[in-house]
């Protein structure tokens, strides 16, 4: 591990890569602060830039920096404006915003920064310990197990993303898989479902789809609902960033506990930062003494530290399945996977042995990113917060323009822009009807890998026999089915209980 760490340090400590981390963190913080633009949209917008860099480690370091920056920026807007940019920072606003209203915005931001730093750093240490171990195990996997693992991943994502609407999430995943089959696959050498259109010969572009699913609907929502882009005209005096030693002592155990909790929740596919942050908040509220419990929701420093730590640790944790199995556990890591594939890197258990410099550079960049966020962003926050005062009449056209540019640069084809607008409108309608979009994109990205592994197993075992002949495959597929069926059964059951109670009342 030490050797790997040294490789990583060597790779990450080049001038170019340090510039990438700093740039990524700054861009991420800037854009992440804008309400409505979460890490997924920002990373989607940044992918074309990362791909043109060409060097996979530099590109991944840039994107990872953007990712951390965006999460930090999201917390900032939650605290200052009560406008969480992403679901993962909703819990941050519970106590962060009351603190800011009490005039302790500076203190709240410091706590958030320290909590994020600690969560991210402890997460990175855990990642360093667990990822190599997991990839050794993953090397024993055959294509049949990979196929089953991906099914488990997709099911888990659907099961979590749906939360009571599992069928919708499953349908979105299937739609993503359908879209992945469009075009000429490597396996069969024949165009499929192109409807004779040359433009579809190489399939749908991943960047266009990512923009259309995440960046464009958010921008359209910002247009439709001006209240969503809360203007930062409100005067928040951000001063007095210091916290006292006593406060530090109070949040230290919270940070310790929530880093570990967040990391392990983050590793689970589909769970991710949102669940980790809410869980962290709930755990700390229950653990707190009765006197402090009343403080929660009114500006408790513990209530702010808990979700912030858990959220960042979970983001680091979500890199585990990506780096070791090549299976993304969240929308954001799915986008990162797409970017890696575009850069000709296949994440998975072989990544560590084939290109250790990429693997370790990413891990080292996590440390650097966290430090950059702490020492660079914290003093800059009062200035960065000025971005909140950009009027929406300038902001929205620029966001739209960047989504257009992003998909144009990737393909150099203006048909792509029409596809982008078309899909963007569809995605907006889907969002209105409460259909989750992340499963669609994950399905799309995993689609070709899923089919490849499926076909390989079919060929090796001359049919679907591989499911029954390999106990692990069978076990994983049963697990996937349970994941899908259980939540809907449970919601049915709980509904029954609650309706019975209501009738009984």
């Amino acid at each position: 591990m030490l050797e790997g760490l040294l490789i990583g340090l060597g790779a990450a400590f080049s001038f170019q890569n340090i510039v990438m981390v700093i740039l990524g963190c700054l861009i991420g913080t800037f854009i992440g602060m804008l309400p409505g633009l979460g890490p997924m949209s920002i990373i989607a917008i940044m992918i074309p830039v990362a791909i043109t860099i060409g060097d996979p480690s530099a590109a991944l370091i840039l994107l990872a920096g953007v990712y951390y920056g965006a999460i930090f920026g999201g917390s900032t807007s939650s605290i200052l404006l009560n406008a969480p940019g992403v679901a993962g920072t909703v819990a941050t606003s519970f106590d962060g915003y009351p603190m800011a209203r009490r005039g302790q915005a500076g203190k709240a931001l410091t706590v958030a920064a320290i909590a994020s730093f600690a969560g991210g750093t402890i997460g990175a240490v855990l990642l360093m310990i667990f990822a190599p171990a997991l990839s050794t195990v993953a090397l024993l996997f055959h294509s049949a197990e990979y196929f089953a693992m991906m099914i488990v991943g997709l099911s888990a994502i659907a099961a979590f993303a749906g939360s009571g609407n599992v069928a919708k999430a499953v349908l979105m995943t299937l739609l993503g898989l359908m879209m992945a089959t469009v075009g000429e696959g490597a396996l069969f050498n024949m165009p499929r479902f192109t409807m004779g259109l040359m433009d579809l010969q190489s399939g749908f572009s991943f960047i266009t789809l990512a923009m259309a699913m995440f960046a464009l609907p958010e921008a359209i929502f910002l247009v439709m609902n001006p209240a969503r882009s809360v203007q930062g005209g409100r005067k928040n005096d951000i001063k007095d960033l210091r916290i006292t030693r006593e406060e530090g002592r109070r949040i230290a155990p919270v940070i310790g506990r929530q880093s570990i909790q967040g990391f392990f929740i983050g590793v689970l596919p589909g769970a991710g930062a949102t669940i980790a942050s809410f869980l962290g908040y709930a755990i700390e509220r229950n653990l707190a003494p009765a006197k402090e419990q009343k403080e929660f929701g009114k500006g408790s420093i513990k209530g702010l530290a808990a979700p912030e730590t858990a959220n960042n640790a979970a983001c680091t944790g979500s890199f585990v399945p990506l780096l070791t199995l090549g299976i993304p556990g969240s929308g954001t890591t799915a986008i990162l996977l797409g970017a890696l594939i575009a850069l000709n890197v296949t994440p998975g258990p072989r990544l560590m042995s084939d290109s250790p410099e990429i693997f370790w550079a990413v891990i080292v960049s996590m440390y650097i990113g966290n430090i950059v966020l702490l020492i660079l962003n914290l003093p800059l926050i009062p200035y960065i917060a000025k971005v909140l005062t950009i009027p929406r009449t300038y902001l929205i056209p620029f966001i739209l323009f960047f989504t257009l540019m992003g998909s144009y640069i990737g393909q150099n084809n203006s048909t792509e822009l029409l596809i982008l607008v078309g899909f963007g409108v569809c995605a907006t309608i889907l969002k209105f009807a409460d259909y989750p979009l992340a499963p669609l994109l994950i399905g799309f990205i995993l689609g070709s890998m899923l089919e490849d592994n499926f076909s390989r197993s079919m060929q090796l075992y001359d049919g679907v026999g591989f499911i029954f002949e390999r106990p692990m495959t069978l076990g994983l597929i049963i697990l996937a089915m349970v994941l899908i069926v259980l939540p809907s059964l449970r919601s049915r059951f709980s509904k029954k209980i609650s309706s019975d109670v209501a009738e009984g009342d």
Partner: protein
Amino acid sequence: MQLDRWISFVILCISLIYGYSAFFVMDELLAPFLKRNPIWPSTFPKIITVLAVATSFIILLKIERPVERKSSSDMDLSELKNYKIKEAIILLALMVAYALLLRPAGFLLSTISFLSLGGVVLGERKIYLLIPITILATLIIWYLVQGVLGIFLRPLPFFL
């Protein structure tokens, strides 16, 4: 019928068309020797079709009872009439126009017009500020894309 069930109906239709192609059209194009293969190009699409049709029916027939939930940050369909739909549609139309004009009109002209018109649609009235800012921003972006990233964008209209 609620919007989500309409959508599931649309997806059902898409799956049926997709499935028709997978079950009936694709296999005819297959070379005879490939038919001995345990896996055909249509195998995976066929599986997806069956699953997608089944899932759309689950939503369409309300077999899985959706949990009613209200999230404060997300958009609400019942509030639709309070939203500025006209602005959104005009901006989308501008995006389509941008897509069609990018090549013939060149990057600079089309981008400056897109950004300024977008600002005007959203209610910016200080045009004397808006236009210089968009021109400056467009030039900077063009320099960054062409000069730093090395991607060619035709700056001027086709006749210049």
